[in-house]
């Protein structure tokens, strides 16, 4: 009986053309929270899939409680009590919460093989209540918020009475408050003796939870440390393989005249009385909890779902934007929240993606000018330093950070006055984050007015000139950054009562 509940030795995994895992090691003690860190594409996700039996490694052994084991499929792993919560929630929108939790390991009558819905519903509800969830287990999955779905995933893991729980970026989609909830749950589980592998790009998560941290880089094992024994800088070096001297390259830019002014924007069921303005070279951070209506506001400005009432002024004259095309024509650009679903045509070449936003620019008397497309996208890709051999490589082969750069490049093809960035660094690794912050800084410098939606405190405080906080669809605070502390923001985004007016 070894001291490790789970131990992996010299694991290697090959995919056609790539070595996804190169002789990596991992050791997990019972009742510990073990952070697994590394840039995107470092091999974390593949590693998880090996542990959960989705992939079979070409080399290396897996030991569970000292016994050598082999996973033919996910069921084998589940049988040993290994459960995973994946980055993108993998629920079944059409099915009930209960079912989402029990699918794959339903309770069935031993004789008749009949599904025992009553028991399952009860147990599901019980688990949810334990997690402090406030919704009913009979609900359809698609009726839940992202955070709620996340909870279902966790509850699902528990329902398999897991002994090893893998959390792959569970906090990526969560607001600070929801993160707090998650931390509580994670710690509680740990105390119940569950071993947790925790993957996240947020240093904060690691420091709050983990006792040990293992770092992968370029599909290789870099090392394992006790969290309290390694400094932030060393860790970043370990992950990125180079120094990142300054994460937030916020320069002093003189704020120009007003470009965008919003007056009392409202949209039924989403937001009301939204008023603020953006100036040339100014970065306005629009923050608050997920679901506070930040994205809705920006999408309304951009014309995805037009406003019901209120006025939008661009350079002084009023706009009536009913469709994104009008917004773009007017000079308002939006970098959408979900890069992969809304920002890119993943299986398309970089060049095609870049030009998609402003195709007419590349159309000469009706005919499409591919030469011009290639030239410009080459220039932009180099300018934004997209890590790619050619502008003809398809977008899905790039890391999150570089994909994000493509989306930025798209906006540079049109002449924008205001650029809205919705969670620009979501799910982007540390190295790329820095790069993106640089780009944002540069954009502001070159005179764009910028609205940046973000839930990450450091980013908000580090990058913005003005901070606008939303809660339940209303603005609760508008503050000049230098004067603001983390507490102010949290207070405004959680505690202020929006219904006083």
């Amino acid at each position: 009986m070894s001291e490790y509940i789970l131990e992996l030795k010299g694991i290697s995994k090959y995919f056609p053309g790539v070595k996804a895992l190169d002789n990596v090691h991992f050791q997990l003690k019972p009742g510990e929270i073990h952070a697994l860190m590394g840039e995107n594409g470092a091999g974390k996700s593949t590693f998880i899939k090996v542990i959960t039996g989705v992939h079979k490694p070409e080399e290396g052994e897996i030991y569970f409680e000292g016994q050598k084991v082999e996973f033919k499929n996910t069921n084998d792993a589940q049988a040993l009590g290994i459960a995973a919560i994946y980055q993108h929630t993998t629920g079944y929108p059409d099915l009930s919460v209960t079912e989402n939790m029990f699918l794959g390991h339903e309770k069935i009558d031993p004789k008749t093989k009949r599904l025992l819905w009553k028991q399952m519903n009860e147990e599901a509800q019980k688990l949810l209540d334990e997690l402090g969830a406030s919704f009913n287990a009979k609900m359809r999955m698609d009726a839940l918020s992202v955070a709620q779905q996340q909870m279902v995933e966790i509850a699902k893991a528990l329902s398999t009475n897991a002994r090893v729980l893998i959390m792959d970026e569970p906090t990526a989609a969560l607001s600070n408050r929801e993160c707090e909830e998650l931390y509580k749950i994670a710690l509680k589980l740990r105390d119940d003796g569950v071993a947790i592998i925790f993957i996240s790009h947020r240093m904060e998560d690691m420091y709050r939870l983990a006792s040990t941290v293992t770092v992968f880089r370029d599909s290789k094992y870099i090392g394992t440390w006790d969290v309290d024994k390694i400094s932030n800088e060393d860790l970043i070096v370990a992950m990125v393989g180079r120094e990142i001297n300054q994460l937030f390259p916020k320069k002093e830019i003189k704020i120009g005249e007003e470009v965008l002014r919003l007056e009392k924007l409202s949209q039924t069921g989403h937001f009301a009385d939204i008023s603020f303005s953006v100036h040339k070279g100014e970065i306005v951070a629009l923050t608050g909890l997920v679901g506070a209506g930040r994205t809705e506001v920006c999408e309304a400005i951009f014309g995805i779902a037009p406003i019901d009432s209120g006025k939008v002024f661009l350079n002084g004259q009023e706009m009536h934007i009913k469709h994104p095309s009008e917004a773009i024509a007017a000079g308002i650009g939006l970098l959408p929240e979900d890069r992969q679903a809304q920002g890119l045509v993943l299986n398309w070449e970089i060049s095609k993606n870049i030009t998609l936003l402003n195709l007419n620019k590349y159309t000469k008397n009706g005919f499409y000018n591919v030469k011009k497309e290639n030239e410009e996208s080459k220039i932009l890709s180099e300018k934004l330093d997209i890590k790619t051999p050619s502008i003809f490589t398809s977008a899905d082969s790039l890391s999150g950070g570089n994909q994000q750069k493509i989306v930025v490049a798209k906006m540079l093809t049109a002449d924008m006055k205001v650029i809205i960035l919705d969670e620009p660094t979501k799910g982007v690794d540390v190295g790329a984050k820095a790069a993106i912050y640089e780009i944002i800084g540069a954009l502001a410098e070159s005179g764009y007015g910028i609205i940046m939606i973000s839930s990450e405190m450091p980013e908000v405080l580090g990058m913005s000139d003005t901070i606008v906080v939303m809660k339940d669809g209303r603005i609760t605070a508008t503050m000049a950054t230098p004067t603001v502390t983390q507490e102010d923001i949290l207070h405004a985004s959680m505690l202020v009562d929006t219904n006083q007016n």
Partner: protein
Amino acid sequence: METRKIEGTKTFNARSFFFQWEWLLIALFIIINIFNSGISPYYLQLDTFTDAPMSFLDKAFMVMPMAFVLLLGEIDISVGSTVALSSVLMAISYNAGLPMSLAIVLCLLVGTACGLINGLLLAKFKELPSMIVTLATMTIYRGIALIILKDQASGGFPKWFNFLGWGYVGPIPLMMIMFIIFAVAFGILLHKTSFGRQLYGMGNNLKACQYSGIKTSRNKILVYTMLGLMAGVTAVFLTSRMGSTRPNVASGYELEVIAMAVLGGFSTSGGKGNMVGAIIAAFVIGFLRYGLGLINVSSQVILIVVGLLLIGSVLAANFKPGGKKKSAQKGT
């Protein structure tokens, strides 16, 4: 850091050039011709290549816009009925005293209108799958045709109208010439204009296109309207070839047209396909049927052959990179 160089010009890659679906089709087409001329002494004569196409060209007119619809990952099974309705209205209005030329215009308008209706419905109710909406309009359009013409046939068109479907310009049938014109037009539209690029985009990721300010609804409506228009064109030529029309003409055309487009490499899950392929495919199927017809193979066997050809071709196509990915997608 210093900016790295990024490759900005396409280098010609023989493999990716020659392993294209279209080459496969051309090969298939050639093989079929060799095969045909091998089995029938009557195959290798000028008539074959001038007359044979006439028996499937009427459908072929709709293949190109249908390809657009498939490109968007949608489908329109109402085209057959659209042809019937426009044809019937043309005949009726002519016999009611409208000059033939205007009657033809009307026919095209009716087709366009039918397509427009499909488009508007689908643009307004995005949550409704095209399969179902067009299933409904399919019944409705033919229903209207039946209401108008009941159990009657209508014809008696002027001589020159007959020329449209039967006439030659030099050795080449007029229909063929018209088809080539349309084929080139649609080919350019798809591959050389930003509109075509937008369609590909919409087929691959509709949301991304919305966020890139592409007028997705407008494009969708346009595509369906084009299909309607071409259904009108088909109606004109078909009616001219038949010299009279009934409410039950062109029944089952929709599936044949879709089959041609799919054989041409357009997946019904959208996002991929090439106009050249679709056009060749139309001829592959057409000449295959004709060749088998020349040796008087019974039509049930022809059914089977075409069916297998369709599946075989898609099987082969699925080995293309992305083919699998596509078909793994949810929904049809």
